């Protein structure tokens, strides 16, 4: 296994009180092609800029070959950057742009003087050597004979090549690329992706590449680091990241995917969209999980021939395949298939066990889809609960007729407004008597969590689950009811 060339230890960067990069640990091996991938504002560029030295971390340290370089300025780091907008020197021609770094470099030469003593001299690189290196770098990026050209007259693609040549000519240990292909058109971008990959092989140096384009990341990288909100979500090979996303963010960000809530229904069995599917992952019984299925991994068959029946509600031709939306119950599932099914057609789907990817759901809060009833209660999980609807609109209040008046005086009838309901695990009260609570269900699982029990209560019809942290021991299969105080119910408007 190759050595770690760069290592970030508990690195954070804070702008205006928010952590853009939040306590990340990351190491990169020598010679790797690593991509930092994430949506804009996820902290990937800031991470790169800290490696380059343009930004100093607010805490943590950055090691290069095991040595702390956190405080070392960029011009002393053996790292070069290819900038997003090329950042070529507009006052210099192609040759002088590429030679910029070489002209500044001083090479250590050792001589012997008359007395046989060694004299160390730091000398400029000779014009001849610079000439050779520049023309070799230009050859590398396929722009021979461009030396005398004015950089401002070059096309975007050519400028980008010059920017790459300008960086690699210095023979850095690490080449940083900050969304270098972002400004190019699709065709050129694809060509450059392959060329960069080729260049990486030839040069054998470490590439750290930043992009928000998941396809680019999958095509080029040895390792992908998926980031979001300043935190590393997953590190892995492109295959791992695509096939085994660690959480729903990664699954959603890498390629198109269907993410559905499911429950483990037995040994290698998971229940979602009203059906128990076989799968390969091993999880604990009754655990709530996120199920990820790629659109291309779902097969459409005639009605009643597959696992789940439903209806095609839309179909779009995408060139190679049709992208269809399959509706089962209230869940929409995206399916890609080369054969088109008519909109409105009743069909059935098949999902193979190995195509079902399960992600652990970190249970922090119960969440439900609900709606507001006529008397300003909230209905979810087969029950009606008292709640404070004024929380939906900051600064609002209710008038005598129970209509909501917003802060700017608008009068709103909330009846049937869809809302997201959240209830903390420890705020759900379990009541022995089935009739006394707001809704009722059956206890399907009890797990001892060291200092408390985690109880799961499932409603009979909609099969909604309440996950409850409680000190008291209940019995499995008990029929109980559930009560929640109005102040413990958080409501959020569903954004259409």
């Amino acid at each position: 296994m190759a050595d770690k060339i760069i290592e970030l230890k508990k690195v954070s960067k804070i702008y205006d009180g928010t952590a853009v990069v939040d306590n990340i640990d990351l190491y990169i091996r020598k010679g790797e092609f690593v991509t930092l991938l994430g949506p804009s504002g996820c902290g990937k560029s800031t991470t790169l800029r800290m490696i380059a030295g343009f930004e100093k971390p607010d805490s943590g340290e950055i090691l290069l070959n095991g040595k702390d370089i956190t405080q070392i300025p960029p011009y002393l780091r053996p790292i070069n950057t290819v900038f997003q907008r090329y950042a070529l020197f507009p006052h210099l021609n192609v040759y002088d742009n590429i030679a910029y770094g070489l002209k500044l470099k001083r090479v250590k030469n050792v001589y012997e003087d008359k007395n046989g003593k060694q004299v160390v001299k730091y000398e400029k690189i000779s014009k001849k050597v610079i000439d050779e290196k520049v023309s070799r770098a230009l050859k590398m990026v396929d722009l021979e004979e461009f030396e005398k050209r004015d950089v401002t007259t070059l096309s975007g693609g050519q400028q980008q090549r010059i920017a790459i040549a300008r960086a690699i000519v210095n023979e850095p240990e690490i080449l940083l690329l900050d969304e270098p292909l972002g400004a190019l058109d699709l065709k050129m971008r694809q060509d450059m992706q392959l060329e960069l990959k080729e260049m990486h092989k030839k040069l054998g140096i470490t590439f750290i590449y930043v992009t928000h384009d998941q396809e680019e990341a999958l095509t080029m990288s040895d390792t992908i680091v998926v980031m979001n909100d300043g935190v590393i979500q997953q590190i892995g090979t492109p295959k791992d990241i695509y096939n085994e996303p660690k959480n729903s963010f990664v699954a959603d960000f890498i390629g198109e995917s269907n993410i559905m809530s499911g429950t483990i229904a037995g040994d290698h069995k998971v229940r979602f969209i009203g059906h128990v599917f076989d799968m390969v992952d091993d999880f604990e019984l009754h655990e709530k999980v996120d199920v990820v299925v790629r659109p291309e991994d779902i097969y459409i068959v005639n009605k009643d021939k597959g696992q789940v029946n439903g209806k095609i509600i839309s179909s779009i031709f995408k060139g190679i395949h049709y992208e269809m939306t399959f509706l089962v119950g209230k869940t929409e599932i995206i399916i890609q298939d080369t054969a088109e099914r008519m909109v409105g057609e009743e069909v059935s789907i098949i999902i193979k066990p190995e195509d079902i990817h399960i992600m652990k759901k970190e249970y922090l809060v119960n969440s439900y889809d609900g709606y507001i009833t006529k008397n300003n209660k909230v209905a979810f999980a087969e029950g009606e609960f008292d709640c404070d609807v004024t929380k939906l609109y900051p600064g609002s209040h209710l008038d005598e007729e129970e209509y909501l008046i917003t802060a700017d005086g608008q009068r709103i009838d909330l009846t049937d407004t869809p809302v997201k309901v959240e209830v903390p695990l420890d705020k759900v009260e379990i009541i022995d008597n089935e009739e006394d609570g707001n809704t009722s269900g059956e206890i399907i699982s009890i797990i001892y969590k060291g200092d408390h029990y985690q109880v799961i209560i499932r409603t009979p019809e909609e099969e909604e689950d309440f996950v409850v942290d409680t000190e008291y021991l209940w019995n499995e299969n008990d029929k109980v009811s559930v009560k929640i105080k109005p102040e413990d119910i958080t409501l959020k408007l569903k954004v259409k």
Partner: protein
Amino acid sequence: MGPLKFSRKNLGIPYALFMLVFVLFPLVLIVFYAFTDANGHFTISNFTDFFSRSSNLYVLLISFALAVLTTAICLIIAYPVAYILAKSGAKTRNVYLLLFILPMWINFVLRTAAMKELLFALDSIGIYNVTDWYFVNTVIGMVYDYLPFTILPIYTVLIKIDKNVMEASTDLGANGFQTFVRTTLPLSVPGIISAVTMVLLPSTTSYVISDTLGNSKVTIIGKLIENQFNIGTADSWHTGSAISLILLFFIFGTMLLTGKFTENSNTRGSGLW
């Protein structure tokens, strides 16, 4: 012909008229006066007379020395100011920029008079000598009056330089000083040239400053022209026009020279002016 094209063409007419009446016509008049004598006959004696009088040549020399010195000092002061302004945060930057521009909003003659009072005040406490240092007085006055015109064009160019380009420079191994010499300075050349043309030209002619602060001992070419048009002898307008043309010629020469510089520096965009 489309109506749009037609109307666009018409839009230019007022400007063409303006140029004709206020630029071309006066210029023709000046050329006419410069090459004729009091009787309206063609002559080049207005020019030969000017160059044959050593006092005139002295004025020419003083004017240019003053202009070059003023410009140089303005640049030396303005560049760091513009640099610091361009580097500072948006809030402080605007406040400081306003402070530097504010004097421009006060009447030029008043400013010069105020400078004179200031120099007299310094004289009275014994650290300055207004009466003997009349040339220095004039330089101080000119620098004071033209400094904002130097700061602004340099500042506008500096602020437009892509931050990434500077970062690229440090990334390629240049420290702060090397980055300045190899990147910032060459990229700000257009601003420097704008600043030079903004200062060099007016400082050869703005005799208000040299009159007020130079104790009438500093005569610049602008003053010489004014004198010719004021004495009102038969041929004084002709002489004055000739001097104007000579000045024009010199200015044109410097412009060509700086124009060459701009071409060489090969930079995109230019200064504010």
